[in-house]
């Protein structure tokens, strides 16, 4: 029997997902590599789009698409991936939910360009912005057009499997690849990860319910045994799918929610907002004036950026209203 073909396709990605493939324990990586045929993986070797296009439709057993869909090229690759593959897996938080690049949905394409090339304090472009078409040594070069709204992969083409995380946890990658090579893929729609929330898996001590002050991680060194949220650190654990082994929390850092919403959730940010607002000021809730409530809630400086760090494009509202720029 022929080895199953796999492809690794890059959308709007930082390539961190790629690196986690290379970080797989050697025994897993070598075992898998020996049992598959890689037909496309531009990060690893010099594959060209033509190589992917040349594969007969439906012949790739599994394509891992990493990154969000943010420009014409990403979309074209997403469509070709779908066409060529029996199974398409959204690889990483960007692909599953829109991820960090998805936060661009707070603005428009024009707003994004202005910020990136003109307004950002670190900018040194001196007003030079990229041209869609330019001529270099007599060759006409085009760059793909950026979209106004960033999308997750399943908002563009049907997706069979999801493997969240930023980057995806190694154990889960191993699980997915092993499932492929042993011919034991789970039912379509499966999300690699736990069916519990991160808090359900986290072993920190949870005791008091009410919190009053929120702290940035630069403001205190948290107790390593106690729940971070109860210490006033905005940990996204209550609204996040488990299965990553909570490496961040183990490092005494808060969870940012890269595994995405819990299984039944339709909006990770709304769940976290709800969880936080319930405990904030709880033990004196009947004494709080409207002003006191405002002060409590204003401690969350950037609700959207905090609650939807990885999921804005797949949130219920998907993007911010376009203001007249």
């Amino acid at each position, binding site marked *: 029997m022929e080895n199953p073909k796999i492809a690794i396709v890059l959308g709007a990605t930082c390539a961190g997902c790629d690196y986690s493939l290379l970080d797989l324990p050697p025994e897993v990586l070598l075992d898998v590599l020996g049992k598959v045929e890689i037909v496309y993986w531009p990060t690893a070797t010099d594959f060209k789009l033509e190589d992917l296009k040349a594969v007969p439709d439906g012949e790739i057993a599994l394509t891992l698409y990493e990154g969000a869909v943010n420009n014409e090229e990403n979309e074209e690759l997403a469509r070709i991936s779908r066409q060529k593959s029996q199974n398409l897996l959204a690889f990483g938080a960007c692909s599953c939910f829109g991820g960090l690049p998805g936060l661009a949905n707070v603005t428009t394409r024009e707003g994004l360009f202005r910020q990136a090339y003109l307004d950002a304090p670190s900018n040194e472009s001196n007003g030079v912005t990229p041209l869609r078409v330019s001529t270099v040594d007599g060759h006409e070069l085009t760059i793909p057009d950026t979209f106004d709204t960033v999308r997750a992969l399943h908002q563009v083409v049907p997706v069979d499997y999801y493997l969240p995380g930023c980057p995806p946890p190694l154990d889960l990658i191993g699980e997915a690849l092993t499932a492929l090579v042993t011919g034991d893929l789970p039912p379509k729609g499966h999300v690699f990860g736990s069916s519990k929330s991160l808090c359900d898996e986290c072993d920190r001590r949870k005791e008091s319910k009410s919190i009053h002050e929120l702290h940035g991680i630069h403001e205190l060194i948290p107790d390593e045994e106690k729940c971070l949220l109860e210490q006033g650190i905005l940990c996204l654990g209550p609204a996040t799918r488990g299965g990553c082994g909570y490496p961040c929390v183990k490092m005494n850092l808060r969870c940012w929610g890269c595994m995405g919403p819990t299984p039944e959730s*339709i*909006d990770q940010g709304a769940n976290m907002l709800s969880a936080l*607002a319930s405990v904030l000021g709880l033990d004196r809730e*009947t004494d709080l004036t409207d002003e006191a*409530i405002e002060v409590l809630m204003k401690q969350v400086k*950037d609700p959207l950026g905090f609650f939807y760090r990885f999921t804005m494009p797949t949130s219920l509202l*998907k993007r*911010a209203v376009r203001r007249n720029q």
Partner: protein
Amino acid sequence: MEATQVAMKEFEPKIVGFFCKWCAYQGADLAGTSRMKYPLNVLPIRVMCTGRIDPTYVLTAFAEGADGVLIAGCHLGDCHYETGNYKALRRFALVRRLLEQYGIEPERIRLEWISSSEGSKFAKVVTEMTEEIKKLGPSPLKEVA
């Protein structure tokens, strides 16, 4: 000519109302049975308690085209689950800030305490809110693709 007439037609806001079944919903009922006059722009949804209104309900309402959301329940101290309405107060203070970041005016979401005997307060709140949303115009989310 026709186009001008369409443009002149007054905008009728769609407001989704989440009313607790113990107080506000009955207040709404009373306003209706007493034949009080108030605009019919509110689609009432009965919930057990304002403390049970998940932020996803409100976000869904806006995502599906609501121009405003009215949340109404028992007066503070009268909640049948003791402190559900206090919870709602804190929760929606934060929801308002979130909606602002999404570009939705905070005035589009309103919290009111209306008892089962306050039919006239219900009529007044609905009238006021409908007027206010008319001034604001349709939800800006409607322009989002």
